[in-house]
């Protein structure tokens, strides 16, 4: 165990020991440990195998930034060990190594000559011979990717959900600047959410000896009423909507103002072996020591470009790590100032103008080669088990750039920081290039206050504070920064220098891609996949820009950054999916259908009964006795007002203003292009009121269509959608009238209640609107009534019909029955090109109507033009049921298609509807249907297959 004595501000509770398993072995940990800190304390140095070369990788950032510690926890792959808290009994396993982490056969890819694995290796190698692609694919699929999902579905499922959070201000990043910004905005009365990817607010303060200040700042924010979300990375910026992922919850934060205080990401240096376990970022080493009291190594070499590395060296030395040597890239030995002096006084050699050229070691670091940055020698090898690197601090600009901020190149630091910001977007802290702790905190307060001002909060005093803060900040930020910009690569001739740890892209690979012509940063990114791995460019963006600049002779400003895209943090797909919320409409009789054994399927957004197990028998029952079908899904509207008749006359090609109260008429809705849009029946209830039904699938669209024209025409008409308020059943068949007579208080004789009459009366004690229409070709009553009585009336009819042979029937037998009558199904038998003329319904169009109506001009045109194709009925010569959509052919030329087809047990033959060339749209014409490789003969018929004259209907 390499635990240090108690560290001030450490996060672990030494009194609480817990254990978990790693690759089957038990590991002890303290509460507060991460999986990474516990494994490191237990002596583990290799945490993963790299993507392509299967090289050993160890802890590097200890902040969830790099890809080096991805593990699977309880079956969920892609978890970062360095930030994932240890929980008692969890099962942690390594990823991407077979058979094990310490011996991985795929390591051969690293040892092979690199000429075999250049960038674009996959594209170049596996394209020929083409016939081998299935084999390649199998191998590549096996090799590609990092994690493996559990095989059992149950183990792949976990509960996730969305949480919508509206806020006045969202602050992203809970470092010193973010905490100050949140507090400042909240104190002025704003409703503030603050999120941070770490487990505790405070950011860098926590690991750099300022934990007390961090906790004080967090307390201030809490007292001001800020909602603080920890372990909660912001994933991206979607036009003001910021998804923040926190375990099982995806917070969708919609804030009026957003403050970005995402800080900086310490950059690695690019040198030979820079990925070897034991090479660690200075921040990572400090986190291990300060937060988890884990000694990162016994003897360290430090390579830095700024004071950040020197500060780490001092802190780690104080924690008990021997600092063997420090290579400070800054040429001036005095740059390190007091820090350098302190190190030197402790016996550490500080080498100015030096950097690290190579990390040596087989499985972990055993030594480092330092040398002059300008290549002028001075090389020396130092034994060590830890290499601490600090290659500069790159502002984490991705999120703020997604929000529309520009980035500007900061030549003094060699990094990109925020530039011009759009409205409602603020930046604070290191992200803005603030110099020093005071500037960071001040820029935070300033951003928070300005965000509150943008909301109309604040007062004279707060505005005065803003003025003062701007002045002070300008002064502070003009202080010089002592930072050296590292070379793109150092020690390149000594071995692989990784630019991108996620995708195993070396600096040499980027150079090679440039040589191949991918000489812009966006192209190089796509070709080499640098910045496209789990780190999302955190570790590699700046490096790749530097290599590009060096190779193409451009300034870094000219090279620029690649477009920032979400997700900024890796996130499981399940978290993005949320709960499976799928609106399902159910008829008020739905429960009864299920009890009757109905097959329930989706029909649009409804759950519907397709049949009750015997579709053909159900259809036969309707024709021989009686059937009952739930048609509650039909669209239903009340259209009311003195101009209601005129309104319908303008919407439909036929007339409704002359319909008598109590009578029903069929109508087809046409577009202004003369195409069939929907159909249904309309019953006039009284002078001013019409009850309009539409197709089930068209209900929503028709409500919108009616409402749209009403909004435009502004007639004195009220339109109310009552689709869901009303249950509707259709009772049909030769015995339907007998059944009705037993439950209905109206005289249902044919004389009193004729075909196409609509009457109001009681059925089983429920007030109903009863429409006598020929829905399925038999005597039928469509009964409309309050949905709350759905089951009651259904049950009453089923009971009353029992002695008459009544059976419930579903959607499938209904389609057969309607097909026998050649009732078209809009959307099934028609498409966006079908006119009423071509669909064999010329009678529906009343071109003699004096007034204009929707579709009139187009229909006038089509009335005079012979349609190219026409919808006809057909009977198959044999028993084959053609697939709906099968092609009607003339010779070998497609000339139409089958839209509906069924075997009719009543007729004893296969019938259908099809679009055919107009020349064939005559009775007894022979057509040929091509289906699944064979052709079949059929005969055209224009009259309904069943009851062609409608005598049954009217009886």
């Amino acid at each position, binding site marked *: 165990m390499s635990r240090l004595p108690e560290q001030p501000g450490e996060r672990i509770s030494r009194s609480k020991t817990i254990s978990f398993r790693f690759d089957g072995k038990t590991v002890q940990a303290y509460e507060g440990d991460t999986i990474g800190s516990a494994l490191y304390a237990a002596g583990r140095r290799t945490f993963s195998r790299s993507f392509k070369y299967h090289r050993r990788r160890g802890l590097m950032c200890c902040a969830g930034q790099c890809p080096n510690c991805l593990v699977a926890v309880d079956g969920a792959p892609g978890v970062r060990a360095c930030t994932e808290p240890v929980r008692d009994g969890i099962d942690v396993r390594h990823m991407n190594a077979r058979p094990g982490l310490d011996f991985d056969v795929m390591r051969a890819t690293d040892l092979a000559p690199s000429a075999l694995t250049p960038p674009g290796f996959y594209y170049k190698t596996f394209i020929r011979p083409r016939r081998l692609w299935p084999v390649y694919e199998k191998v590549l699929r096996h090799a590609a990717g990092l994690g493996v999902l559990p095989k059992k579905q149950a183990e792949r499922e976990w509960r996730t959900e969305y949480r919508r959070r509206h806020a006045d201000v969202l602050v992203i990043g809970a470092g010193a600047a973010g905490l100050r910004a949140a507090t400042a905005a909240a104190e002025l009365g704003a409703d503030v959410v603050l999120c941070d990817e770490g487990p505790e607010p405070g950011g860098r303060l926590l690991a750099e000896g300022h934990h007390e200040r961090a906790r004080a700042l967090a307390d201030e924010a809490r007292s001001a009423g800020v909602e603080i979300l920890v372990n909660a990375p912001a994933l991206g910026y979607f036009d*003001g909507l910021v998804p923040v992922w926190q375990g099982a919850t995806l917070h969708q934060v919609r804030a009026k103002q957003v403050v970005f205080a995402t800080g900086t990401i310490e950059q690695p240096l690019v040198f030979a072996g820079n990925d070897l376990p034991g090479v660690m970022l200075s921040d990572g080493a400090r986190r291990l020591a300060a937060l988890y009291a884990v000694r990162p190594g016994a003897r360290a070499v430090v390579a830095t470009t700024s004071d950040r590395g020197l500060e780490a060296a001092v802190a780690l030395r104080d924690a008990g790590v021997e600092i063997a040597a420090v290579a400070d890239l800054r040429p001036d030995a005095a740059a390190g100032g007091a820090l350098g002096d302190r190190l030197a006084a402790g016996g550490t050699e500080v080498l100015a103008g030096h950097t690290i050229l190579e990390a040596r070691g087989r499985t972990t670091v055993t030594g480092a080669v330092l040398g002059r940055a300008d290549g002028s020698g001075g090389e020396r090898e130092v034994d060590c088990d830890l290499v601490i690197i600090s290659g500069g601090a790159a502002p984490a600009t991705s999120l703020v750039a997604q*929000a529309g901020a520009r980035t500007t190149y900061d030549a003094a630091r060699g990094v990109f920081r925020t530039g011009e910001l759009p409205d409602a977007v603020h930046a604070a802290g290191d992200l803005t290039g603030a110099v020093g702790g005071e500037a960071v905190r001040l820029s935070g307060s300033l951003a928070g206050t300005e965000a509150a001002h943008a909301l109309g909060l604040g007062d004279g005093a707060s505005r005065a504070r803003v003025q003062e803060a701007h002045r002070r900040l300008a002064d502070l930020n003009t202080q010089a920064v002592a930072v050296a910009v590292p070379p793109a690569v150092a020690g390149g001739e000594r071995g692989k220098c990784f630019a991108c740890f996620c995708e195993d892209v070396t600096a040499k690979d980027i150079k090679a891609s440039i040589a191949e012509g991918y000489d812009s940063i966006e192209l190089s990114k796509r070709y080499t996949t640098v910045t496209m791995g789990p780190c999302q460019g955190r570790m590699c963006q700046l490096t790749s820009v530097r290599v590009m600049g060096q190779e193409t002779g451009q300034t870094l400003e000219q090279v620029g950054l690649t477009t920032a895209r979400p997700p900024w943090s890796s996130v499981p797909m399940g978290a993005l999916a949320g709960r499976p919320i799928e609106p399902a409409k159910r008829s008020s009789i739905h429960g009864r259908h299920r009890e009757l054994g109905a097959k329930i399927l989706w029909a649009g957004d409804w759950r519907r009964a397709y049949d009750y197990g015997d579709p053909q028998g159900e259809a036969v029952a309707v024709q021989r006795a009686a059937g009952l079908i739930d048609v509650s899904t039909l669209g239903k509207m009340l259209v009311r007002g003195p101009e209601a008749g005129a309104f319908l006359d303008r919407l439909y090609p036929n007339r409704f203003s002359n319909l008598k109260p109590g009578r029903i008429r069929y109508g087809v809705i046409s577009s202004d292009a003369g195409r069939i849009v929907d159909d249904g029946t309309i019953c006039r209830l009284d002078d001013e009121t019409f009850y309009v039904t539409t197709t089930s699938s068209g209900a929503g669209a028709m409500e919108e269509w009616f409402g*749209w024209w009403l909004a435009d025409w502004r007639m004195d008409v009220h339109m109310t959608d009552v689709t869901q308020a009303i249950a509707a059943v259709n009772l049909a068949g030769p015995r339907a009238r007998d059944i009705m007579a037993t439950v209905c208080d109206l005289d249902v004789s044919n004389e009193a209640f004729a075909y196409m009459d609509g009457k109001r009366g009681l059925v089983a004690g429920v007030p109903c609107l009863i429409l006598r229409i020929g829905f399925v070709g038999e005597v039928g009553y469509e009964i409309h009534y309050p949905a709350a009585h759905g089951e009651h009336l259904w049950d009453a009819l089923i009971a009353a019909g029992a002695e008459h042979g009544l059976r419930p029937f579903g959607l499938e037998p209904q389609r057969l029955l309607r097909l026998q009558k050649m009732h078209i199904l809009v959307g099934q038998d028609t498409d966006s090109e079908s006119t009423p003329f071509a669909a064999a319904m010329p009678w529906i169009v009343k071109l003699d109507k004096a007034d204009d109506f929707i579709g009139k001009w187009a229909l006038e045109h089509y009335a005079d033009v012979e349609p190219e194709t026409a919808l006809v009925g057909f009977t198959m010569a044999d028993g084959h049921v053609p697939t709906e959509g099968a092609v009607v052919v003339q010779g070998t030329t497609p000339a139409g298609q089958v839209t509906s087809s069924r075997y009719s047990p009543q007729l004893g033959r296969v019938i259908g509807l099809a679009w055919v060339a107009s020349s064939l749209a005559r009775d007894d014409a022979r057509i040929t249907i091509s289906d699944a490789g064979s052709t079949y003969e059929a005969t055209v018929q224009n009259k309904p297959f069943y009851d062609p004259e409608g005598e049954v209907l009217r009886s």
Partner: protein
Amino acid sequence: MPAPCPSPTRGALVMSYLLTCPNCGVREVTDFGYGGEIAARPKERPSFRELNTYNYFRRNVAGVQREWWFHRSGCRAWFVAERDTRTNEVHWTALPDQAPAAEEPSAQVPAGSAGGEATLA
């Protein structure tokens, strides 16, 4: 009264924007149905060519246009919005009878017939 719409990032293209329903107030754009650019129906019988233009052609401007929206998830009313198609910035929304008079005459004539006037610039 035309209602102003919040614009989180003025000047930049936004996709998941907010709309102000004149009846219900500010909602996510996913609350609404889009009815397309406003194209007045011909008042008199059009020629067949004019009819086809009205039915099938749109001005499709890169710029500010008036369009129909439907508050599908809310009051289920149609209203008019003025939106910049380049940025999705919505300048205002209003009920049809409360929309400001259109400045450009093209918004009052069939969309299609103005198609020829739309410049490529």
